[in-house]
């Protein structure tokens, strides 16, 4: 039996839920498709986080976006305690979508709180596929895998990231979460064209899209003169270049659940809400084009 009336996330914009906005959201109940949370923030036994999330969940569909499963970590099995905590939240809050990252964050029991990169090899492909299988079978639900923002690459990484993700989908039946800002950040940092990446990406498996801001850092030991590294810090508005990639993506696949991620220097609620409405605007445009043609 379900605890909540609303389950399905519509093909509309959603917002990453922040504690600063709990009260405003409950008072104003803004017209918005859905919310997403990092499950790690709700793994305490009780208290205000659960009280507010429950109240908001009663009004909106939800997505759980994990940052701590370390699917790319080297251990043979995933952390059973973390799986159990994640599953408990899934059972309690009935999220429509569950996602994690193509990255690692834990090593020998220590958690590094960052999405660390891995080489894309046959070995890591098998390894990731096993971990995704393990997570999906434990959760009893498909997991979406997000493309990382990359600052460096390994010398020996024979698979292109897009091909690697496509292989993971084929082997595990996972879905994909395409972070459009991460495409832009990685493309700049690694010197490739963001639109080429998008053209190579298996967009037919995208079930969710992320949109966020990044910052710019000048490189000190700039050997090749690329000048700057883009840092995926989710601390500002989505820039026009990223909206441009989003526009192309939506033109290809139609409207999809699209999340505004803003995790640092968190603004007042109206600013976030406005970002979501911009995403909705892009999606509306493509729906009407499709209807006309």
């Amino acid at each position, binding site marked *: 039996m379900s605890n909540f009336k609303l389950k399905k996330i519509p093909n509309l914009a959603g917002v990453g839920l922040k504690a600063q906005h709990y009260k405003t959201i409950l008072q104003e109940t803004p017209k918005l498709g859905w919310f997403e949370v990092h499950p790690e923030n709700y793994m305490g036994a009780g*208290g205000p986080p659960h009280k507010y999330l429950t109240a908001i969940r009663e009004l909106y569909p939800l997505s759980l976006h994990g940052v701590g499963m370390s699917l790319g970590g080297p251990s043979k099995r995933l952390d059973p305690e973390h799986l159990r905590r994640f599953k408990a939240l899934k059972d309690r809050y009935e999220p429509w979508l569950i996602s994690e990252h193509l990255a690692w964050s834990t090593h020998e029991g220590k958690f590094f709180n*960052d999405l660390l990169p891995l080489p894309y090899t046959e070995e890591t492909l098998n390894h990731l596929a096993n971990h995704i299988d393990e997570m999906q079978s434990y959760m009893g639900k498909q997991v979406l895998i997000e493309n990382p923002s990359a600052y460096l690459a390994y010398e020996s990484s024979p698979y292109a990231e897009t091909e690697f993700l496509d292989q993971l989908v084929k082997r595990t039946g996972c879905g994909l979460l395409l972070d459009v800002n991460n495409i832009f950040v990685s493309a700049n940092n690694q010197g490739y064209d963001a639109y080429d990446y998008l053209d190579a990406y298996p967009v037919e498996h995208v079930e969710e899209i992320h949109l966020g801001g990044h910052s710019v850092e000048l490189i000190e030991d700039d050997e090749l003169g690329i000048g700057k590294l883009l840092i995926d810090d989710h601390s500002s508005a989505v820039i026009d270049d990223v909206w441009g990639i989003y526009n192309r993506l939506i033109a290809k696949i139609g409207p999809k659940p699209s999340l505004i991620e803003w995790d640092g220097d968190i603004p007042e609620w109206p600013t976030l809400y406005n970002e979501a409405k911009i995403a909705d605007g892009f999606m509306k445009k493509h729906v009407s084009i499709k209807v006309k043609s």
Partner: protein
Amino acid sequence: MASFKQIHKEFVAALLAPSPPIPKGSVALKKPNITSRFAVYRNNVIVGLIAALKSNFPICYALVGDEFFKALAIDFIRKDPPISPMLFEYGDEFALFISQYSPADQLPYLADIARLEIMWRNAYHAIDAKPLDITKIQQIDSKKHSNLTFKTHPSAAMLTSDWPIYSIWQGHEDNNMVDIDLEVEQTILICRPNVDVLIANIDPAACIFYSAIMNGQTLGSAYEKSMKQEPNFDFNYCFGQLFALGLITDIVVEK
């Protein structure tokens, strides 16, 4: 090519250590600008964990300021990185670390403030329970009162310090730290009956009374112990506070 395990090991060794600035050995990274590129991850990890500690220990942060806190946090992070992705729990060993951190010798109360903040966090995230209303006790035959025991709230905890931890906490809440007498020893009682974490400053006799109640002793025994300590023990006030702070979730009547 290096195994996946080896790559992780060398990557991690370079992440937290002051040096080397990039992974040594078999992790072959693409040029150019490897140092700058790897520095993004080094920075993300350290900055992210400092932010987690700052969020978990806001009073410690306010007491020592940004520069001191960062230096303290970095030393702590290198020694004791988190062992779970639940970062709201990070820093269980922070108080002990502070107590042995010589640059903080001038702030001998800092470790106990960190203990207070750990207790606050535990109370905030503790499992929920509904506090009992004081009127419930009036429904019980008064002859049975001295043999009553109580179930206390899962968030309830006490901390005794050689320092004025309550005044420092209150000063931080009120944004006024100026008139705190450091020669005072204080004990606090923490409870989160509903949404807000409540903190009370309790005197030694009350401390004995609340300890006895929380340890499951009878009301009569708790009363006697407190009176023995302090003949002026204000039983009515302390008993009322048990309920006002939401400390009692059930009354057990002896059969």
